């Protein structure tokens, strides 16, 4: 069996350096790598400046980053349609545990668990609540912390910023609390 470079998932030692390259290209063109600031830009475009000065800034200067977002959307379309069989194989023990404990048995067969992301499950208030709560905390927390995985974990830590280290430690405290303490309560 040879590895199929197009269809097989990219190993970490390919993906990681390419992410670093993305950051360096953005630095080279005079910008910075940060994805969550686009959420603030979208608030401003939607007229949020009426409600808080936090959204009073020249969002036109951030248009470049929205174009990056547009590109990321197109990239997702290309990758999922032409470069992937859209399944993710994780550690079999973790997959088994997901099945046994939470009834999520789609690991290895899907890219996202249909139990949470299938369109027809949007009518399930429990699923809807998870998507809304998860998204809300990502948006709120990223702005409160002044950045997300790209802005802090990659850009900030690369620049040896102590605030970014504190933020990333926070990301992991939150993630570990969610998976190990809250999941057993939420998915029963």
């Amino acid at each position, binding site marked *: 069996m040879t590895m199929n470079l197009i269809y097989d*998932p990219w190993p*970490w030692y390919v*993906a*990681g*350096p*390419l*992410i670093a390259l993305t950051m*360096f*290209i953005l*630095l080279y*063109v005079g910008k910075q790598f940060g*994805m969550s600031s686009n*959420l603030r830009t979208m*608030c401003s475009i939607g007229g*949020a400046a009426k409600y808080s000065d*936090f959204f009073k800034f020249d969002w036109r200067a951030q248009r*470049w980053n929205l174009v*990056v977002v*547009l*590109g990321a*959307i*197109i*990239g*997702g*379309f290309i*990758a999922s349609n032409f*470069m992937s069989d859209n399944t*993710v194989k*994780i550690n079999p023990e973790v997959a088994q545990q997901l099945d046994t404990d939470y009834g999520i048995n789609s690991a290895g067969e899907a*890219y*996202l*668990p249909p139990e*949470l*992301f299938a369109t027809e499950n*949007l009518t399930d208030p429990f699923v809807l609540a998870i998507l*809304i709560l*998860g*998204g*809300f*905390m*990502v*948006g*709120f*927390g*990223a*702005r*409160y912390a*002044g950045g997300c995985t*790209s802005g802090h974990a990659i850009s900030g830590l690369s620049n040896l*910023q*102590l*605030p970014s280290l*504190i933020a990333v430690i*926070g*990301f992991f*405290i*939150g*993630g*570990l609390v*969610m998976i190990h303490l809250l999941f057993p309560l939420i998915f029963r």
Partner: protein
Amino acid sequence: MKYLSYLTIGIFFGIIMYKSEAASWFRIYEMFQFGSFHMYGVIGSALAIGVIGVQVIKKNNIKSIDGTEMNLHPKNKSVARYLIGGIIFGLGWALAGACPGPMYVLAGAGYFSILIVIASAILGTFVYGIIKDKLPH
């Protein structure tokens, strides 16, 4: 012309996120279960190269394409906002299984439900903007 380069960077980034499976809920779950080295390898190798590259940029005072300083400003000192904000972000990241970059990528991949997550993330950002003066920073 400039916008075309930003679009290309975005496409490049989107493909990396999808192909590395960093945009997969399963990989995020597995990471927080310490079930695989994969996500740690992705973030860790990006970081290792990032740290070295930024040091090289600073040592040699390398400028951006238009001759200006690169965007490598120090972040404001604080603990509360980074720790509390970070924890809230982490709770959401693990629950939705997606951080902001991958959210857009998944929208392009055709997962309609991710639009709910994105809309909620925008709402979360909006609510932060409303109550930020009441929060410890």
